[in-house]
């Protein structure tokens, strides 16, 4: 039996000018998981990269637990009311975000992220959005500074075989 497409490019964006936010909208419910790959640099200021789902701006619906190393020590912590899924550094870096079971309408949504900025920080973050709605819209943003020109964002869908 021929295998179906299981790792599919849904959309991608390359910034032609610096921006503090990008959005993937009208995400189809066709897949089981989503993966977002961001690569690039920040303008002047490093900051947390945050994510809002389905335009839900209520901070109280989000929480995260993280572990990181900065080259000297490693630590872990957690935030309530926080939308962090990565970091945006001035140095070239990448963030890889996996959103599991995004299209079900029964469970809260869990996200697993890896943030990679050699020379600054390496980390992993698990995030929770306490809402059962299927995800159709993802907004990534920084609270300070911008994503610089040339930063890329790719959205992939993983389909069950």
């Amino acid at each position, binding site marked *: 039996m021929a*295998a*179906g*497409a*299981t*790792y*599919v*490019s*849904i959309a*991608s964006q390359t910034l032609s000018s610096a921006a503090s936010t990008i959005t993937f909208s009208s995400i*189809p419910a066709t897949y089981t998981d989503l993966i977002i*790959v961001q*690569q*690039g640099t920040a303008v002047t200021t490093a900051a947390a990269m945050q994510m809002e789902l389905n335009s839900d701006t209520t901070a109280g619906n989000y929480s995260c637990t993280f*572990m*990181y*190393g*900065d*080259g*000297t*020590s*490693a*630590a*872990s912590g957690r935030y309530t009311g926080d939308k962090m899924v990565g970091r945006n550094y001035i*140095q*070239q*870096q*990448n963030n*890889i975000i996996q959103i599991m079971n995004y299209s079900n309408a029964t469970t809260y949504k869990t996200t697993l992220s*890896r*943030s*990679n*900025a*050699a*020379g*600054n*920080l*390496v*980390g*992993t973050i698990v995030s929770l959005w306490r809402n059962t709605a299927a995800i159709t819209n993802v907004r990534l943003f920084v609270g300070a500074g911008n994503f610089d020109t*040339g930063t*890329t964002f*790719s959205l*992939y869908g993983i389909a069950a075989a």
Partner: protein
Amino acid sequence: MATANTFVQIGSTVTVGSGGAANISFSSIPATYTDLVLIISGRSDYAATISRAKMQINAITTNYSNTMAYGDGSSVSSTTNTDYITYIYSVGSTATASTFSNSNIYIPNYAGSNYKSVSVDSVTENNATAAYAVIEAGLLSNTAAISSLTITDANSGNFVQYSTASLYGILKY
């Protein structure tokens, strides 16, 4: 809406033969894709429970940096190095027999004109002490497109028989 599969194996899986191998290489990597994923199952003949390999890009020997965090079952630590873009952990010859490490190396925009950043996850569980779980961020401050990858045991050991490495390309529209 695009529907084609974009996770494609490049070449064939490298499986180390009975004589072992000092390194594993992928050359002539096409610029057809946007991201690369390298999956390694590795074990070294280095006489320790843990070994590690270094990844070199395009035979470049300078301008690397790396930050890693790792846990060994009792504590977590973090360190940096500038030798290679990443260390890929593997189990050594004194680890539990038949155990192999797993490593996943993700390289976004490998064919672009940007500096090359990588994301690495390595685990060496062997149902004994001295197992590592490692996350790494690597950077090559060089804008050349990546056309070759070479993984060499950092302790001058060899990858043992049945170690494998597979390279995949991810294509976006």
